[in-house]
């Protein structure tokens, strides 16, 4: 296996790992979804570290929102 192939496999593993974490934390909050969004995000993440970081940033605020909402619920309960 060449270094390039190893890198591409590693990128795929990072994508798969991140997707499970993100998908499990994400609430279906959007009233309208661009049907091409998933394909766009997947390709950016497959494109390498830079793309994965950009996509990661997009999800970061959603993760923060999720944590805040859990915190609010805990305080209220």
């Amino acid at each position: 296996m060449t270094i390039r192939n190893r890198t591409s496999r590693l990128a795929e593993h990072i994508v798969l790992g991140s997707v499970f974490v993100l998908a499990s934390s994400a609430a279906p909050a959007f009233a309208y979804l661009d049907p091409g969004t998933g394909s766009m995000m997947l390709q950016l993440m497959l494109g390498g570290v830079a793309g994965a970081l950009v996509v990661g940033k997009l999800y970061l605020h959603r993760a923060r929102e999720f944590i805040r909402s859990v915190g609010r619920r805990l305080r209220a309960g």
Partner: protein
Amino acid sequence: MTAAGAQSVPGSYRDPAGGVHRLGDRILRTVSPEHEEDFNVALRTGLLDRLADEGRIVAFESLPLPAEALGLAGAVRVLEHPRLPFISHPYEWSFEALRAAALHHLDIHLEVMEGGVTLSDASAYNVQFIGTRPVFIDHLSFRPYRDGEIWAGYRQFCEQFLNPLLFCAATGVMPNAWYRGALEGIPTSDVRRLLPWRAKLSRRVLLHVVAHSALEKAGPASGEAAGAAKAALLPRDAFLRMLRDLRAWIAKLQPKGRRSLWSDYMTTCSYTDDEQAAKKEEVAAFAAAVAPGMLWDMGCNTGEYSLLALKSGARRAIGWDGDAAAVDAAFVAAQAAGAELTPLVGDLANPSPSQGWSQAERAGLLERSSADAVMALAVVHHLLFGANVPLPQAVGWLVGIGPRGLIEFVPPGDVQVRAMIARRSTHHPYDRDTFVAALQRVARIERSTVLGPSARELFWYDRTR
């Protein structure tokens, strides 16, 4: 852009880059001013000419402008294409045909990428078949590749090629009925829900189905996504790796547990070798005498008689059968023989309707074209007993497809027909006299041939006299 004369083809309204028009028997394609530069750049690479010379995209010729005389005033470029023998829809393709179309699409994309050109979409409707040879038909899909851009047609490729193939490979269920109802293809999120968990252990399924669908569900708003796509890049190498990896995957997929009622019919049917030889002789004589430019074999099974007709005088043939496994066998046999047969999946009692936008985007079976000749071998009793179609209607419909034809009548005493009758308490009249009277009402019977002791009989009709 269409004036009097040329008529816009209903299925070509989507692409703002141009459109396809019909002028009598001629097929013309206009290029819109907005797409002119992109098309010219793609054309100057010489890739389109090479692919056309190799027969992998449909041939084209630039017509002199202005095109007012053609009724296409305002077009910045007009291409003329040869007319294809038949337009089929992806939901009429068997597994092997859909696979061949998918591989053809990927091969063309990989090849043009080497020359700095990419494809703007990945619609399965942009592939057609001449015999079993796939041909790409949308010249306006070619445009210059911009370094770092994502694969715009990826989602469409998954929905229209990968997902139906994968669904069939993982479950053994043919996707044609679903695809026919969902013209844009099978959504990735639906396939994810239906795939068995074991199928999801595959790296490629996790990536192209599970991750793809999860990112779509949990994705950012489209504005944010578009911004991200501008900020980040898909390196060319990663783009090519995706295309190559999909190609390698699709080439290896197989329908799960393929078992067909009809694909082994040729070895289990209820008549003798002599009768089969007599049937072949009659089919060959019919094809030689009529020499149809286009023969439709209704209920083609594994294509044996279509292939024989092609050897004996028919120029091209389309085969229809409801059994996708038999159609796959016919597709592979036609490929091996290099024959001009396109076997397609279709329920004769429920042929493809006109549908899509304005109920005209994807033309129904009989709206598309008609045949010069029809063969319907051992089919009529299936229409009567399988779909309760009365004999006069079944015969009338078949004869309506082509002016000349060969129809087999299987007598009520045949072992298979007896089994069908035994399962029913009542059915429409089924006997030779009713059949002959029905055929004589719509056509002249040229001759009839009893095949042997089974009393199966072939009727050669002509409704032009």
